[in-house]
């Protein structure tokens, strides 16, 4: 997308012609590169934009997101703290910082940041995302299947089949055993195949998901 970039996408043709001195243009470039999962270039574009305007919150948020995706959590934290120094009550930034420290296993700090973010704006989408993610990480969800793991289901099925045999319903036990084997085979074979041919659909990048919130930060900054 940038003039030094070796790869130019169709969307990049339009972005390439945006003014070099406009941080909003760099924001668009960086956001596009993030969406393409080209995080090194996205971080470069965000830094170029910040050279024009070091206090541009959406660019700082985008840069922190790209650095997080690149695995450089320490640098992402520095960027995030700089953004928070400019806007300490920004619920969007606080929520994202909570998710950043949660990635490093610092759940106590993440909880404190989510509480701060809730005080600033309890209904902000990034706050809701951080709060639900934190609850999930801490195991405060009510999905007993996940809580007990596959072992619980396995034990339940085996116990039911043995119980059917013991009470004399051999045919029903055989049917249940066959259904169980089919289900186990399905659960082993289908998910890896889906991951292989359709890509991992369970995740979703930190940077890309952060883009929606960037517009909120941008609007807040403009107001």
């Amino acid at each position, binding site marked *: 997308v940038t003039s030094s970039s070796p790869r130019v996408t169709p969307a990049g043709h339009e972005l390439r012609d945006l003014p070099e001195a406009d941080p909003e243009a760099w924001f668009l470039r960086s956001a596009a590169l993030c969406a393409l999962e080209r995080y090194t270039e996205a971080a470069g574009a965000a830094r170029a934009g910040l050279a024009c305007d070091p206090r541009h919150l959406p660019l700082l948020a985008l840069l922190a997101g790209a650095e997080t995706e690149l695995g450089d959590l320490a640098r992402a*934290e520095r960027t995030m703290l700089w953004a928070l120094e400019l806007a300490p009550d920004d619920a969007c930034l606080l929520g994202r910082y909570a998710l950043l420290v949660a990635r490093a296993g610092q759940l106590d700090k993440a909880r404190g940041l989510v509480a701060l973010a809730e005080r600033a704006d309890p209904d902000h989408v990034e706050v809701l995302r951080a709060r639900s993610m934190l609850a999930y990480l801490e195991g405060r969800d009510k999905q007993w299947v996940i809580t007990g*793991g596959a*072992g619980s289901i396995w034990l339940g099925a085996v116990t039911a089949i043995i119980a059917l045999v013991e009470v004399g319903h051999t045919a029903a036990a055989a049917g249940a055993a066959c259904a169980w084997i089919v289900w186990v085979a399905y659960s082993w074979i289908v998910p890896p195949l889906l991951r292989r041919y359709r890509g991992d659909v369970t995740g979703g990048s930190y940077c890309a998901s952060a883009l929606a919130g960037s517009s909120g930060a941008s609007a807040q900054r403009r107001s």
Partner: protein
Amino acid sequence: VEDETNQLFRASLAGYSAPDKRPWRLESQFWAAFFGGPVAAGALAWVNAGRLRLSRARRIAVLSIAAASLVLQAVGAAALAVADTASAIGDSDWRVLGLTVQGGGAVAHPFLHRVQRTGDRIFRLVRSEADYVSLWRPGFLTVLGGAPIGIAVAWIAANVAEP
């Protein structure tokens, strides 16, 4: 309150580096627990706790759960020996001892799963499903090492209860 807020805005990731070794899937550990008993389950969970960088308290919890399951398994083996279950069901004593090992592992697994869960979910937040490492070889080796220990403990308990 201001101090707490300032603490939250203090950098805390400066020395952070990603874990060197990738963990095993928690669900896969069930098979090693079932066939290898509490010793195998505890050993795998202990190593995995290190890979997930769990706190010292959680690692101690892993050891405690494995030890408690082993004790439970020994008590179960003693009770089955006193009740002469092998004769009642027409099976060998060794088969009954093996069942207590499997039961001990199956009982230990949900608790070990729970202790590792938060660390595992953090790993899933950062990495993808494909980033787990295979448990086939270490699981097989742990079963080979853990099951005989479990059977030996059950045998001793059964002989102490019913000489």
